[in-house]
């Protein structure tokens, strides 16, 4: 990657560009990346975007720098703060929230996420932290998935445990709760979405300096590969300068 921006900055920019004005975004643990993306989107093209920082319940907090924890005291004061049980209510209501930010130990070809266990649940080879709020993924208008690990161990054909449901593998009418499901996957290598026909993960753009076969090799299942895979447009100067206004300590440049 270019030295002018970091991989995390590029990922934040890709996420930000995907957020639409007026959407309500909810994010969970380790919020620096989605929080940066939301603030960037608001600053540039989505002035009425709303975002909730997970456990804190803060809505549209604008701290001086990017907090590492979703319950960081620095998130207050925020224009409005929901008690966590109210966030849970709105997550279940479904029509209140638009974009759920998720990730996983494993992410599969249909966008299912696993935060629980690699190997059988009862005798895990690897135990993850737990599912937190991601069972609400299919209830939200859509979800976006991001991960720092684009490897065959993370990107698997089928997750060992479904924490956060992705797309069903069946036909269109089976879409649960009539919501859109995962609409974007952002990794250090690429941006991906899902093929509208079979709803398998599809390569959309490769980040500058990354080859298509490099992404395919890093993915543990057969990606849908369009004939043309453009390069992810790098961050503009404006994007970078806005992004860095709230990141004086370079959390995204580490």
């Amino acid at each position, binding site marked *: 990657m270019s030295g002018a921006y970091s991989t995390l900055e590029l990922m934040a920019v890709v996420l930000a560009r995907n957020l639409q004005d*007026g959407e*309500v975004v909810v994010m969970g643990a380790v919020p620096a990346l989605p929080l940066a993306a939301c603030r960037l989107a608001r600053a540039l093209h989505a002035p*009425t975007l*709303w975002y*909730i920082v997970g456990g804190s*319940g803060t*809505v*549209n907090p604008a701290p001086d720098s990017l907090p590492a924890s979703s319950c960081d005291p620095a998130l207050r*004061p*925020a*224009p*409005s*703060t*929901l*008690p966590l049980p*109210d966030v*849970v*209510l*709105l997550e*279940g*209501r*479904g*029509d*209140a929230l638009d974009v759920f930010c998720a990730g996983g130990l494993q992410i599969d070809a249909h966008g299912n996420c696993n935060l629980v266990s690699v190997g059988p649940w009862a005798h895990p080879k690897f135990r993850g932290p737990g599912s937190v709020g991601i069972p609400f993924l299919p*209830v939200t208008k859509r979800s976006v998935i991001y991960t720092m690990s684009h490897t065959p161990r993370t990107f698997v054909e089928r997750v060992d445990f479904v924490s956060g449901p992705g797309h069903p593998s069946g036909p269109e009418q089976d879409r649960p709760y009539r919501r859109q499901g995962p609409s974007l996957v952002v990794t250090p290598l690429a941006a991906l979405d899902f093929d509208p026909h079979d709803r398998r993960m599809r390569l959309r753009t490769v980040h500058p300096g990354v080859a298509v076969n490099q992404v395919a090799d890093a993915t543990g299942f057969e990606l849908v590969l369009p004939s043309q895979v453009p390069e992810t447009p790098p961050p503009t100067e404006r994007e970078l300068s806005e992004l860095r206004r709230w990141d004086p300590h370079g959390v995204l440049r580490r």
Partner: protein
Amino acid sequence: MSCEFLSPSEAVPRWIAPGATVGVGGMHMTAAPMSLVREIVRQRIRIGRLVTSPSASLQADLLIGAGLVEELISPYVGFEHLGLAPAFRRAVEGGSLAVLECDEGSLTHALYAGAGGLPFIPCPPGIDLTDIPKVNPTLYRQVQDPFTLEARWAVAAVRPDVTLVHCAEADESGNVAFGGFPFTDRLMALAGRRVIVQVERMVSQERMAAHPPGTTLPGFLISAIVVAPGGCHPTAAPGYYGRDEDAIQAYLEAARTPEGFQEYVERTILRLDEPAYLEQVRGQQPAGVS
């Protein structure tokens, strides 16, 4: 979703469809969103199902007396020490209002279910020993507890199509802050498909941000905000003004008969648009009474 700042006469027809399920906040004679309620009366919008707080007063009695309510979900309509609710009583005794009998517990849990996407809630203990669920098969059914296999009453989720509440303050992004008490108004707002909030005043985002968790609602939940200082009159707005007992008693006196009710509505509500009503109220009492 973006919240609009509207006048009462704009907000009410914009978001209250005829026949809708309407939730109206305010407990007893405090924090009733009367500017919005009066506007419904002026525009004669028919309410399919009116859902109130666990205890309602004028905000329910006025709509019922005006003949606008088909079904009512309310655990209490009355005026505490000032007496019973004349229009409610007359409508029920005359058979013109269908009451979906319930209590404070069931209603609060039903709104919680509505806010959280839960289909129903098993009722807390106590109601099984009353006659309430027996007379209301619409809201109450028996469910089998899958853990104990015992039968138990359940209450269906309640989701207003639109919830009307009073708040003290709004900022320009549409965030709102409750005054002294959140009552069940916050919950009813979380359960509403749409929310219209009537506020006393606009404040800066800095002031809004100083309110602690649980005392505000974020603007993305609000469809319209109506700035109506004095708009709870004759009920109280904590921190702003007390209830106007003379005005409430004048209503109760007038509403003893259908004719009196009609005459009262014409004289005090229909004759004036809401800004003129509030202007008149402000002329009658010192500003900032608390």
